[in-house]
């Protein structure tokens, strides 16, 4: 889950207002996963990629269903319209109408940037088996504006395919992840994903605006703003197929 979080946050930003019964750290993370899992969503969001000398805004529509199926398609700008990304389990495919080819992202490219943003392909594609690949523990419990926020430290197992030394999450008790920090193995903060705006949309309290950025280059970040979202809707399985990636049927 932890690894999958960016996508989870981008696409779902779910928050079922179930009071946490168990304050066990693993349970808190698992709850967040479980609430994100098994649901479907249909959302529109804008992504702003900011660099010191340029900035670029894209509007995208994303669908998710079940554990790990998702489809994201670019709506704006016009020249990128139709570019799509499909993920299923650990695999990822992209389609660009300009070249009219579906490309499976090979493992060698998983570490590379997704659509030029600060998210890597891996951030977007990885499945959620990560609950089991980390040891979670509660660092602290805080009260912010009347909401309990758990600070959870997740340390990857020895053989987990994770480069981080540890990750620290701030999860509210309504399951909104407000912060996700990635530390290297010397416990130096490398990058973080912060929720800048939390609000209600689609009947849930979710993170509306999030920013991912590396610590060493504060001028470079990617921000995702949710424009609209619908939860728990019927989505046909045919939506998450390669042929639909290539030829959209909506």
């Amino acid at each position: 889950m932890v690894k999958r979080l960016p996508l989870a946050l981008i696409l779902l930003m779910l928050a079922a207002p179930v009071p946490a019964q168990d304050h066990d750290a693993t349970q808190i993370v698992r709850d967040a996963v479980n609430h994100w899992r098994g649901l479907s969503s249909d959302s529109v969001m804008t992504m702003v990629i900011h660099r010191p000398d340029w900035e670029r805004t894209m509007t995208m529509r994303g669908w998710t269903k079940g554990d790990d199926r998702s489809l994201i398609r670019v709506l704006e700008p016009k020249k990128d319209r139709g570019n799509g990304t499909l993920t299923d389990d650990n695999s990822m495919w992209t389609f660009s109408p300009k070249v009219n080819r579906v490309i499976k992202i090979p493992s060698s490219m998983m570490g590379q940037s997704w659509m030029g943003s600060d998210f890597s392909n891996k951030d977007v594609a990885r499945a959620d088996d990560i609950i089991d690949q980390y040891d979670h523990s509660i660092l602290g419990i805080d009260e912010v504006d009347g909401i309990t926020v758990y600070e959870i430290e997740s340390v990857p197992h020895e053989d987990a395919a994770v480069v981080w030394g540890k990750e620290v999450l701030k999860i509210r008790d309504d399951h909104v992840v407000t912060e996700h920090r990635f530390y290297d193995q010397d416990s130096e903060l490398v990058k973080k994903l912060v929720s800048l705006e939390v609000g209600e949309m689609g009947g849930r309290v979710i993170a509306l605006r999030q920013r991912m950025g590396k610590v060493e280059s504060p001028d470079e970040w990617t921000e995702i703003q949710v424009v609209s979202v619908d939860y728990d809707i019927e989505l046909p399985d045919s939506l998450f197929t390669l042929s639909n990636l290539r030829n959209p049927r909506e």
Partner: protein
Amino acid sequence: MHMLAILTRLAWRNLWRNHRRTLIMLLAITLGTWAMIFMTALMRGMVSQMVSDGISALPGHVQAHHPDYRDDPSIANLIGVSDTELYERFSTAGFRQWATRVRVPAVITSEYDSRGVTLIGVDPEREDGMTFVDYDAVEGRFLESSDDKGVVIGRKLATTLNTELGKRIVLMSQDPDNEIADRGFRVVGLFTANVMSFEEQYVFAGKTTTQDMLHIDDQVSELVVLGDNYRDVEALYNKTLELIDDGAEVKRWTEIDRFLGTMLGVMDGFVLVWIIVIFLALSFGLVNTLVMAVFERVREIGLMLALGMRPMNILGQIILESLLLLAIGLALGSALAWATVEPIKEGVDISYVGEGMDMWGMSSTLVPELLLSDVVLANVVVLILGFFASLSPAWRAANYEPIEAITKV
């Protein structure tokens, strides 16, 4: 015989009549010879270094792969025979050393960077001395067993990735179903290699661990056999071919690294070409000197002819002059070459251009290799060609009309 003695004496004296010109020519021949022999020794050294580095890169005088592996070294092209079966067949064959490896392209990722590398799953006990990695020189430790959970990477790669001994990295590759296969490893050792690019290219992990990660049960990418002499691998080749029994494609190292194999073969021809090229430059000076010597002595030659010396003897005298000059030059040049090679016998440190040499697969010390056959070749070639070059001025001198020659002003 008597005549030859006289001619030699005449030639010798003539040589030193204009000693400044002779000395200059001598200097040119000496330098030329030195360049021929010294540079040849360096090139020889370079080539044998390249060959031995190339073989020790991941040696195996004979290797076996899936027939398509060399075109596409991917996980899809594994040896058809299982590792266990290979072990049964090969362990009793009495090879000096042999091993099987998993060898696939992979991506190594740290917190800060990622790089494409070649992941090699090895059986450390069987590989000792077969790879370019000296186990004892590894900072940290080398892998301990086939199911060691650690990874050994090059020192330079560690710097590039901003990681270090004791930290974890992630290796990512593909399994046979094209799915992503990845795993975290702890860096247990850092190796240094003679050839700098190896430090960035190769990553060693335990064979069993690698097989688990890639979801290949008991299969390997290559089988390598090491013999005693890299120049003669035929017996090894035939034996391997017989044992593998159609299970894989067997190749000699000369076929695997054609560049090196060809290099070795071309070298002999190259030495000859090199000697001839230098000689051509030299021969202009030589011929010029002889022509001058003849022109200066037109009247004298005419007188000798008039006194009854035979044209053949005039010819012989000039040629002898040339050969004496060459012989002295060659002797001095050879001696000088030996004198310069001797102090650097142990190798020259060329690490300041190491990165450039790396592109050729060369290491950063150059050990010159002075072969007697090359010295003999240079001397013989120069003497023979020198003989032919001096024919023309000698011929001209021998064919003077005595009267004309004497009266020439």
